[in-house]
């Protein structure tokens, strides 16, 4: 844990095979093979080139904001750094403890009680027993669920579910924090406390990679921006410059437009 955190992404491409209809079926595949069409099928298999030849590296202190339209590859890039998707080409090297806030429902089972879900989340993180206990206290306190913590999650209101999910996701403190934009959304009442906790976590992390549509977040939190377009890096540089070309006009000071 004494090592500095580091992310190196070199020439990474990720292709998604598009399986739909026929190619999902073993029968159709075998029939195609039997009639000598498999080779052709292989070649003409529809793939989505989610990331194409992406290279960058981040060291301790870097805060990278990923911007780009829907389907530009932002979430895929986060998942690739998190090691969920393995690159088809190129190399990803991530050194340091990592926490990816991609999905609050991670490991949450609505049939389980809140306490059981917290315990599972801790076990995913490989925590020891005293650490698990601390995690439980921390999450229970922040989520403020009271006695609901021992009831199955399906009895929770949607607000309570979000609070628990957020509290769990932000309770484990990493060197490298990957964050998807929806994490910044939330209802106003909770948002104030959530924002503080998230900011503490962001400040505590050595490296932040954030995917967002909201330019003011990039301006406020990031030291570098990466504009992704159809899986390629369109521009890489200081947030002000990249945002200016992304938006097509120079940034006004304190511009806070949600795109």
């Amino acid at each position: 844990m004494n090592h500095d955190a580091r992310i190196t992404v070199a020439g990474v491409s990720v292709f998604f095979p598009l399986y739909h209809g026929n190619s999902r079926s073993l029968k159709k595949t075998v029939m195609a093979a039997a009639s000598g069409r498999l080779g052709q099928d292989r070649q003409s298999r529809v793939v989505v080139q989610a990331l194409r030849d992406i290279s960058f590296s981040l060291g301790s202190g870097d805060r990278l904001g990923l911007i780009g339209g829907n389907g530009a590859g932002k979430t895929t890039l986060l998942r690739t750094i998190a090691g969920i998707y393995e690159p088809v080409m190129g190399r990803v090297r991530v050194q340091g403890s990592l926490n990816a806030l991609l999905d609050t429902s991670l490991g949450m089972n609505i049939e389980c009680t809140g306490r059981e879900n917290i315990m599972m989340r801790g076990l995913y993180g490989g925590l020891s027993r005293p650490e698990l206990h601390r995690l439980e206290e921390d999450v229970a306190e922040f989520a403020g669920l009271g006695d609901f913590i021992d009831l199955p999650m399906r009895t929770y209101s949607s607000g309570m579910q979000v609070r628990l999910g957020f509290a769990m996701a932000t309770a484990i403190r990493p060197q490298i924090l990957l964050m998807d934009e929806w994490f910044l959304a939330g209802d106003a009442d909770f948002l104030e406390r959530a924002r503080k906790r998230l900011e503490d976590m962001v400040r505590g992390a050595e490296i932040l990679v954030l995917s967002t549509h909201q330019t003011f977040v990039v301006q406020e939190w990031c030291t570098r921006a990466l504009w992704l377009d159809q899986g390629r890096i369109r521009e890489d540089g200081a947030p002000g410059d990249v945002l200016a070309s992304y938006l097509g006009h120079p940034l006004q000071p304190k511009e806070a437009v949600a795109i």
Partner: protein
Amino acid sequence: MNQAMQASMNTLARASVLDLEGDLSLAAGHRLALRDLTDGLRLWHLACTLAWLDIRLRYRGSILGPFWLTLSTAIMVGSLGVLYATLFHMDVHDYLPFLALSQVLWAFLATMVSEACTCFTQAEGMIRAVRMPLFLHAVRLLVRNVLVLAHNVAVIVAVYIYFEVWPGWHAFLALPGFAVWGVDALAVCLLLGAFCARFRDIVPIIGSVMMIAFFLTPVIWQPEQLGRNAVMLKYNPFYALLEIVRAPLLGHVPPAETWLAAVLYSIVLCGASWALFVRARGRVAFWL
């Protein structure tokens, strides 16, 4: 650790180094697959917790809890035992202990195979949210089914006590058999789990195959009833595997030939499973 605790009120994530490359060489593929296995085993505590939660959730809110399993097995064995003993003109005192044992063991094998198909697809949310060894899901499935088996053992014990059957010390010979089952079960999970994640129409096929296997394997009938055709049984992998556990628990020593067949079938299974897993491991997340 103390320093870390002081430094932060929050829990610290585990340090790690992740190094992934595209265009893997075969050797690198094997190495990553092996690491998946060892990492998965290291998380056995999580696998056991998940398995136990699976069972508790299935029976949450019912008075008997997981003992519903025991009760339903008991009713089935009792009614089938009397029915088949009448149909096959057999003595209930010989037949019922045999059936109770066979039925419980077969239920384990059949459930293991059919649930192996959804090994990865069921854990889709988890696989897509965090990097986790895929082997963990196989271990979870095995543990879950062992827990179910443990509940059903009560039925066997009750029947044995009632009919005063005592397998003797030979029963311990079932232990190596169970070890082979454990390895095979994990291999089946990786094999069918990956295969069914890619090809979604396999699940019902496996269901049919297991149904046919149930009738072709001496589960409810005894091998002796085949007469001279019993030699054909050695081509049935389920028979060899069932027999290495069942025979000792009935007080017999399984013949070396049966053991040899069971080990050979297991080696083929593990080989196929490994070959597929090495290729599919990095792709499963894309298939879900």
